[in-house]
């Protein structure tokens, strides 16, 4: 692959689309570049569970012919994407990252969201690596493009790593306790956990029905917005060329910064990047309101209980009736299921009742303080070394799973939309992400604010995506600055 082709993989979706339409390159060239990029990065990053070379090239050919005959499906037309391997994609097995599904047959239909992306002209490259059944934050064997000795986060770790590595322009993930936002933060990309219920989850393997959401990951806020808009477009309604009103003045933005829950027990390197980012926003004229959300810890607990019990229920039949298949589950998931089965039904129902109280408490905060969004860290640490999965310097004795969902899970209970985007890098060059949590159903406002913040923080001008270590220099993207 030429360095010119590599640098084009660092362009934004709008820039790539413009090149397709003015015939600077074709959809086939673009897809071939992505496939070559996968070949180059996979020996190190392991982000893909399977790649459908033939299917992707065939879809690109159709996209190109359509463009040449005047059919334009919108901003995703001809854009190569990845799909987390818990979504059904017609013709490919849904293995969910589990040996227990080695014998899964190819799906006959696309999941509803995949159908919408394809209808918008997107080219599906293949399935990205997920932590087993979307339950966990490590996503082996995937690694982090910012430092391949480190994990990408999870469970949508393959999706985030593939996007950060420049192998695709966007990818689908799922988020039940943070599984889009966690890898997005660890890999320095943007991810949206939509409002609960905003996107169909049909033909996506469930983790916890009452909390599951699916959503996009991409390099920039605008790229993520374009995917979101395609996902929200009814195929019967025809093509759209969405635009986001970017005329958002700092003076119109008012964010809440809830203490202490989200700002205690952070690694010092994360805290300093977040504090610096907040100072930048204040200097830009954004109103920052210090506040409290006393129910934050209870909200996390509520989501935790619901998640564990429902996960156990999803896998109940296999656990109880199919010991041979259950033995092929990884030990972490077996343990999670066993623990979920031990939780009393009364506690589960109290958590379900508490959810309404927590949602109302959040709505009251937004109304009383007249805020557009909450701003909180996405993770208490930066990406961990794969061979040393221990949480240090947070002041808490936590497992990786507990620590990495501590700041994301509260919003799965409230069901509000949350955008995670990178705000800076620590002294090791590892990305730090923040969450913007908004009003239910108002993703558009989050994107408007997110785009303003993205510009203020200049994360992408620092050189995303790029492998830092010199030994990976031959697969480094020369530039990715949109």
């Amino acid at each position, binding site marked *: 692959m030429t360095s010119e082709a590599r640098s084009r993989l660092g362009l934004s979706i709008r820039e790539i689309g413009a090149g397709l339409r003015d015939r600077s390159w074709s959809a086939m060239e673009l897809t071939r570049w992505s496939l070559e990029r996968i070949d180059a990065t996979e020996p190190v990053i392991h982000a893909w569970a399977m790649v459908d070379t033939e299917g992707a090239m065939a879809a690109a050919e159709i996209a190109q012919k359509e463009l040449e005959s005047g059919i334009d499906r919108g901003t995703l037309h001809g854009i190569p994407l990845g799909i987390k391997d818990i979504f059904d994609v017609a013709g490919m097995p849904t293995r969910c990252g589990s040996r227990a599904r080695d014998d899964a047959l190819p799906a006959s239909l696309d999941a509803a969201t995949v159908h919408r992306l394809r209808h918008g002209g997107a080219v599906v490259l293949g399935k990205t690596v997920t932590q087993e059944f979307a339950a966990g934050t490590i996503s082996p064997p995937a690694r982090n493009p910012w430092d391949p000795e480190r994990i990408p986060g999870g469970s949508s770790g393959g999706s985030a790593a593939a996007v950060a590595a420049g192998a695709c322009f966007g990818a689908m993930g799922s988020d039940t306790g943070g599984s889009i936002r966690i890898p997005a933060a660890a890999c320095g990309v943007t991810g949206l956990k939509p409002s609960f219920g905003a996107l169909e989850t049909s033909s996506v393997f469930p983790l916890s029905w009452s909390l599951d959401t699916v959503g996009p990951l991409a390099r920039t806020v605008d790229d993520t917005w374009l995917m979101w808009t395609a996902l929200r477009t009814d195929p019967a309604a025809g093509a759209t060329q969405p635009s986001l009103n970017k005329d958002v003045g700092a003076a119109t933005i008012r964010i809440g910064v809830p203490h202490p829950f989200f700002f205690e027990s952070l690694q010092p390197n994360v805290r300093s990047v977040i504090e610096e980012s907040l100072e930048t926003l204040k200097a830009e004229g954004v109103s920052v309101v210090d506040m409290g959300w006393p129910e934050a810890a*209870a909200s*996390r607990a509520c989501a935790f209980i619901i998640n564990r019990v429902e996960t156990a229920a999803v896998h109940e039949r296999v656990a109880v009736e199919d010991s041979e298949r*259950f033995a092929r589950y990884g030990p972490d998931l077996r343990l999670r*299921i066993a*623990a979920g089965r*031990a939780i009393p039904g009364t506690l589960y129902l109290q958590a*379900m009742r508490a959810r*309404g109280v927590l949602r109302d408490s959040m709505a009251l905060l937004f109304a009383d303080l007249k805020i557009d969004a909450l701003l909180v860290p996405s993770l208490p640490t930066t990406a961990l070394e794969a061979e040393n999965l221990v949480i240090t310097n947070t002041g808490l004795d936590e497992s990786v799973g507990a620590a990495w969902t501590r700041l994301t899970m509260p919003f799965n209970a409230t069901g509000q939309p949350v955008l995670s985007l990178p705000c800076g890098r620590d002294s090791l060059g590892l990305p730090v992400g923040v969450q913007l949590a908004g009003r239910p159903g108002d993703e558009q406002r989050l994107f408007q604010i997110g785009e303003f913040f993205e510009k203020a923080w200049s994360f992408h001008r620092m050189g995303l995506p790029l492998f830092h270590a010199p030994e990976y220099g031959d697969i480094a993207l020369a530039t990715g600055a949109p």
Partner: protein
Amino acid sequence: MIRNADLGSEPVPDWTLNMPEMARLVDPASDVVELRRYAREIAAAQQELNGIDLDDAAPPASFSAEWREPLR
């Protein structure tokens, strides 16, 4: 079988120690540390939830209007 003593001395609700079924599904010899961690996490979550005043809370959504409506 997992014994209470295996889970350490920190106080956790009795039901988190009721783990014969858990022992059947996992390897207690290698996972006892993780079981202890889980028991602590679940107990902590229960304590947090107990802090929420549910006296006036509605029933879970799935049992509310959509289910009652057809019975009227």
